[in-house]
């Protein structure tokens, strides 16, 4: 007997905001195709109100996430890698479709993305020692600098590298205790929306990462001007100088930290990233602590 002709079940891709999976507040969707133009899925076309809701969720999550121990954050990031490992097949398929790659090339990319989570998981409790420390000062003081997370970071994910590039910009932001509002690649948002499902099952508190899909320019503008967003990563505005400049001007209004788009291609994403993307979203707090007058009373210092 032949296999009955089964109707396949299509997945409804949804946003990931505040630990939940809402549709766009606007009710809009747009079509996503593969490199050859074949239809893949309809995904939410986010509005500025979705962006606002995501910022509210990210702000709410910031206190607990930035206050969690660095060790705990490392465990959570590692857990994301574990969960991704279990859904490797799905991501290989989505990346292959999105970027028009062969299965073997897509596998290399997905593996690199999983390894990147592990790499940043290791950094969570080490970055403080590397970029902070005691400073020598000419006076009777201890002088200590320590890096602190900036706050809510808007992240425009790279347009071309839909998964490895995405992970490479999210992981450094949340590793140090920031929370993120991520605008997925406009043409290839499926891996980003699926990543939301992985994050939801990885002990990552809701709201730490929020994923929006839609027109980058439309969502980025209100995020760049938003007074409650503390920093913005313009990686995804890299192909559009006009947009990047406009966003930078809007971001200047409340003195947001801005990470300008850097020229990168796929090969660069797979290289070891270094600490730059982490330090870009850290504030250095320096404390002066008096030690009493040195020498005068035979101080032990």
């Amino acid at each position, binding site marked *: 007997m032949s296999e009955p002709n089964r109707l396949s079940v299509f997945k409804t891709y949804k946003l990931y905001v505040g630990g939940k999976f809402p549709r766009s507040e606007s009710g809009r969707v747009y079509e996503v195709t593969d490199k050859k133009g074949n239809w893949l899925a309809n995904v939410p076309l986010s509005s500025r109100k979705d962006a*606002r809701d995501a*910022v509210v969720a990210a*702000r709410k999550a910031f206190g607990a996430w930035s206050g969690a121990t660095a060790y705990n954050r490392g465990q959570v990031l590692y857990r994301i890698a574990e969960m991704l490992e279990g859904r490797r097949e799905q991501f290989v398929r989505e990346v292959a479709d999105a970027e028009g790659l062969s299965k073997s090339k897509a596998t290399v990319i997905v593996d690199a993305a999983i390894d990147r989570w592990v790499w940043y998981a290791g950094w969570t409790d080490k970055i403080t020692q590397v970029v902070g420390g005691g400073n020598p000062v000419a006076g009777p003081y201890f002088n200590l600098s320590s890096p602190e997370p900036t706050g809510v970071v808007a992240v425009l994910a790279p347009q071309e590298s839909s998964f490895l590039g995405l992970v490479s910009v999210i992981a450094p932001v949340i590793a140090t205790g920031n929370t993120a509002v991520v605008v997925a690649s406009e043409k290839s948002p499926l891996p980003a929306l699926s990543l939301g499902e992985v994050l939801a099952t990885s002990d990552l508190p809701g709201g730490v990462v929020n994923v929006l899909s839609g027109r980058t320019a439309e969502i980025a503008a*209100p995020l760049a*001007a*938003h*007074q*409650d*967003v503390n920093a913005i990563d313009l990686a995804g505005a890299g192909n559009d100088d006009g947009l990047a400049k406009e966003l930078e001007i*809007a971001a200047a*209004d409340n003195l947001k930290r801005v990470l300008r788009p850097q020229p990168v291609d796929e090969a660069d994403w797979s290289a070891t990233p270094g600490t730059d993307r982490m330090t870009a979203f850290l504030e250095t707090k320096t404390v002066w602590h008096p030690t009493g007058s040195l020498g005068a009373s035979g101080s032990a210092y």
Partner: protein
Amino acid sequence: MPTTAPTAHALADVAASDSTLRRFLHGLPGVDAVGLEARAASLGTRSIKTTAKAYAIDLAISMVDLTTLEGADTPGKVRALGAKAVHPDPTDRTTPATAAVCVYPDMVPAAKEAVAGSSVKVASVATAFPAGRAPIAVKLADVREAVAAGADEIDMVIDRGAFLAGNYVKVYDEIVAVREACGTAARLKVIFETGELSTYDNIRRASWLGMLAGADFIKTSTGKVAVNATPANTLLMLEAVRDFRAQTGVQVGVKPAGGIRTTKDAVKFLVLVNETAGEDWLDNHWFRFGASSLLNDLLMQRQKLATGRYSGPDYVTVD
């Protein structure tokens, strides 16, 4: 038996005795709960944008009774609250002042001082707020103290125990006595604690009971229980004040309190007011919001409309 009828209107004699009062309250039409909630929900879907939204936000700000009712209230906190009530957004002096600050009776002098010279009123809760479980003499003393200290408005709680036990006349007499204690100096808001009245029918009865006894305002709740102001119970109370004015010519205000935290919610309530009671109530003399965190959200939305940028909690005060 109550000896004084507070107002000489068509319904003055329904409180003549326990039985007439009971007959009147139980003769009120039953509430269609499903219809009420559906009506409140459908009015909540109105889209209020641009200039209408700007108007609604300013109106809502001017209707806020900025409230602090905590055991940990200090004169300093009340002063800060008073300053905020007078100038809700110090960066934008076109922002209207709130209607009142609402505090415990012992904080009335501090509040009075803080809002001196402005249009902001001082409201004081009284009558053993929030439970209302104290002898009548204590409740009246509570009210007199607050009025003597300069309170412009008294927020009293009804005796829910007596109401639920069916002893309507006791509740009525108490409101009348408090009304007398307020004298002409203070307006009286009567809190029903709708979350404890169990049914919509009870909320309707309580509304009429309060208005018959001479309330200037009927107020949903204390903010101290799980269920506070909802669109449905506020809609019900708005219908009651509308019908009461139609029958007696006396206008009574409404104050939903507790649980209203966002601009969106506040605007929904204003739609309810306009569509139910009518424009006459769209004024802070006749409609109030009992709230604390609502004001910050209203201010953030106001800043968004003025600048085009979304604002954040860093740009309003932390209370």
